[in-house]
């Protein structure tokens, strides 16, 4: 021991570290779900998922990219990735109790080219938005889907530049921000179907957008920067991060809704998840570098500010807990899941925080955390 200053454990006990712990369940919700489940069990004969222990698989007829959990219902939306004009969006029902995913064939609809993102309305489970050539709003009826509206911001032309992503404002639900390859971000008032504002956000294509507050959003771009915009001051944006290699596009962005100081981004062809603290611009607070392939998707825990899940080409989904103070590059994930192939998409359910969905090839899996 000698000179070593030992950090003693605050506590030491003999409980097996891997001992079983039940997740806290909100009992009220459980009961409600049980009721729903009973209803649905009756007509779920056509379940096509492979069920295994605490992991629900669903195999689609086509490769999957877009995926969204409904924050207010049991629904999951899947967007196909077919390199042709006609693509599909499928709606599934997820029953955590019976560990089942049930497709709703009557709610499937065509989408022109693959949707680049799907997202449910933060409050209304029957509204789904997709992005691609336009931002589209769909209404899911009981057994049909209506294309509610299509948002085209170009007055002069009948088309606008294709959209790479969008984000539904979680505070002001009438507001959706879209990011486009024409270097702009457009903020829509979907209630009035008008453009609230359009900002030339970056020097190059904008690849992702994320809301922080009702009027504050951030975006990432091929110009290798993360910028924050405040709708109250449209003249200025703040660059809070620039990737060390100026030509490395930043592909995705996730803003920690539980602790708005933090956001995460991923780089092209990089195994890093870069965690940013908006209070310390330009210097990431942490870089999570335990993926052995490039990272494809990130998602913050919906109910914890310190947990983030990432998934990548190494077919792994890793959950990280990043300590506020620690050597920023040596953070290890706390747990992992290995999928059969490259994971392309990742969503952490906010209505069921103990479930994470991943998409690989033409399958999705719901993983219990």
């Amino acid at each position: 021991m000698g000179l070593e200053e030992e950090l003693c454990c605050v506590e030491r006990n003999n409980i097996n570290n891997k001992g079983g712990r039940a997740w806290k369940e909100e009992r009220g919700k459980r009961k409600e779900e049980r009721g729903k489940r009973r209803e649905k069990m009756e007509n779920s004969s056509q379940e096509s998922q492979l069920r295994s222990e605490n992991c629900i698989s669903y195999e689609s007829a086509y490769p999957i990219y877009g995926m969204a959990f409904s924050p207010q219902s049991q629904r999951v939306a899947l967007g196909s990735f077919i390199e042709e004009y006609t693509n599909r969006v499928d709606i599934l029902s997820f029953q955590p109790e019976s560990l089942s995913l049930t497709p709703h064939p009557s709610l499937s609809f065509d989408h022109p080219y693959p949707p680049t993102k799907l997202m449910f309305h933060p409050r209304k489970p029957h509204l789904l938005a997709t992005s691609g050539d336009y931002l589209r709003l769909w209404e899911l009826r009981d057994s049909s889907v209506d294309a509610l509206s299509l948002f085209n911001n170009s007055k002069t032309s009948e088309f606008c530049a294709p959209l790479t992503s969008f984000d539904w404002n979680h505070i002001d639900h009438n507001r959706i921000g879209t990011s486009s390859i024409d270097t702009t971000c457009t903020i829509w008032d979907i209630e009035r179907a008008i453009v609230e504002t359009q900002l030339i956000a970056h020097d190059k294509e904008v690849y992702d957008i994320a809301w922080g507050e009702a009027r504050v959003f951030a975006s990432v771009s091929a110009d290798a920067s993360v910028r924050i915009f405040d709708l109250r001051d449209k003249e200025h944006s703040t660059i809070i991060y620039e990737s060390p290699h100026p030509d490395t596009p930043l592909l995705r962005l996730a803003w920690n809704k539980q602790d708005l100081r933090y956001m995460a981004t991923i780089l092209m062809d990089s195994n890093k998840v870069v965690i940013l603290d908006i209070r310390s611009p330009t210097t990431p607070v942490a870089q999570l570098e335990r993926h052995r392939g490039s990272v494809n998707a990130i998602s913050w825990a919906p109910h914890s500010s310190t947990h983030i899940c990432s998934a990548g080409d190494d077919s792994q989904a890793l959950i990280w807990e990043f300590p506020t103070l620690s050597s920023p590059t040596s953070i290890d994930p706390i747990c992992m899941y290995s999928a059969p192939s490259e994971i392309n998409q990742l969503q952490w359910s906010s209505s069921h925080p103990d479930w994470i969905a991943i998409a690989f090839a033409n399958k999705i899996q719901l993983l219990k955390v």
Partner: protein
Amino acid sequence: MEAECDNMHPVFCSLSTFDLCDYLQNQKMVPENLKKQLALAVRSIHWSYAIFWTDSTAQPGVLSWGEGYYNGDIKTRKTSQGVELNSDQIGWQRSEQLRELFKSLKTSEISPQTKRPSAALSPEDLTDAEWYYLVCMSFIFNIGQGLPGRSLAKGQPIWLNNAHSADCKVFSRSLLAKSASIETIVCFPFREGVIELGTTEQVSEDLSLIERIKTSFLNSLHVNVPNDPGATLKSKNLEDHAYVTFDHNAYDVESIPEVGYDIANTTSPDGSSNAFQANQPLDETFMVERITGGTSQVQSWQVIDDELSNCVHNSMNSSDCISQTFASPEIIASAPNYNKPSDPCTRDLQKCNNPKMTLVDPRSDDLHYQRVLSSLLKSSDQLTMGMHLQKFHQESSFVSWKKGESMDCQWPRAGTSQKLLKKILFEVPQMHLDGLHESQEENDYKEGMRVEADENGMNHVMSERRRRAKLNERFLTLRSMVPSFSKDDKVSILDDAIQYLKKLERRIKELEAQRGVTDTETGTRRSPQDMVERTSDHYFSKNNNSKKPWIKKRKACGVDETGREINSDALKGSYSNDVTVSTSDKEIVIEMKCPSRAGRLLEIMEAVNSFNIDFNSVQSTEADGNLYLTIKSVFTGATITTTKRIKQALQKVASKC
């Protein structure tokens, strides 16, 4: 005791649980006015903080937080009273608040699903130095280890400069110190413990400073000042009582506090907040039972103490409340609810252990260090999550991550990384753009038919519709051209078209074969002499005119060889090298004219030979510097060369000079 309490209202039995001996012992460890003296000492030298590390009551031989005073920077100040305080009071209050915050953080760690009890400070209000001070509260040192431990073991002061850059083996808190800009740390033994002083200034070693502090402040401490426990209900003393109370080993820990919860609820006048408080110690007791290491015991006692002091604060020094708190666990001792899986409290209790377990698992110092920090720095909301995640119970799809564990799979794999993501971001927009251009072209093409986009801009859909309409139209045309045998769909139409084309091709071959038969017949009918005669006739008689004989000849041939296919363009040209190649079945007739020169004939013959052609007859004449050549031959090779290729080859030879 428990039996006694079983049926009693908690209030009645609470005070009887106090153990005076333990209480007094504790008093000896932390002299009553130590804090005051520490405050005086640290203020006199304008250092940032003072900590008294003392032998822990639970596990002798381990140093833990005994007392402390914070004198450093303060970011914000929340004074509930709104009364202006002088600097002494501020410092004093701040130290108290920090301690309280630490306790509340510990509390929230224990019962994450409840709200953190209100502390005067929240973690966001703290400066870096305060964080340092706060986190120090969680440290424990074995004697001989760590700065305080070594100082005590040697009985000598240790003066550490550049604490922020010290090797973490020497000073494990160096990273923390760095964040707090703590530069100088001094430890010196004092009574049964060690006093640690720290400052953000760089202070060179000065042992006289230590002496001065010792003599002027610390020697005036009262030791062993026994207070009458029953008479003092000041919060400080109550804290001590708490120690004592929970040091009582008589709890039946296997009892579960659902009952306790209820009791606390019903007995506490403050309602739910008190109930929560009351429940805290129960959680603790449950844990205590499981703790094996003495070190941890110290801490858990401390936590109990924390709970109680919170309770004290919340209940405005009401002894009633405290006694309820103390009492409830005992009542619960008899509650036989243990291990009912459906019992929410049981679950909660089990969860309470989660953070502890992570703290306990010292896989590496680094890891432990992070855990300590992260668990302390988290707010209660965040902890809820941490709790869930730190547990990979059997139900989870995730397994705990281990370095290098999954190195067996073959990564990195070949191929594009982020394939789908890149396609989505780079290619899909391009698909849309291409689609748009296409539709625009279509629009331009059929201007009149251009459909105005509706206000929703459904033009893309429209263009696609138009494209499909055109496709369908073409399919219909195709179908009308092809005899249809099968169904009406597009695949069938294409199938029929393919069949039909094949049929037509076969038919062409048949016809060609028939034609070949007639050709050979006519060929044999015609005598070679005739040919020679005729050609020579023409060639010799019409000397200068290069065209006429060919035209005539063609006419002649046209009569005789009706089925023969003649390359007419050879005749059109006015070049001096004209080549005509005609074939029928396996017979080939080559007629050519080119400028004459030495070796030309040989070259031509070689070129013709290269096509596996056997000569039946070769006639050549030369006139006016031009070579006229007629070759009759048959193919012998397996492959039949096309007339075009032969012609090209010959023209090449002919154009050579």
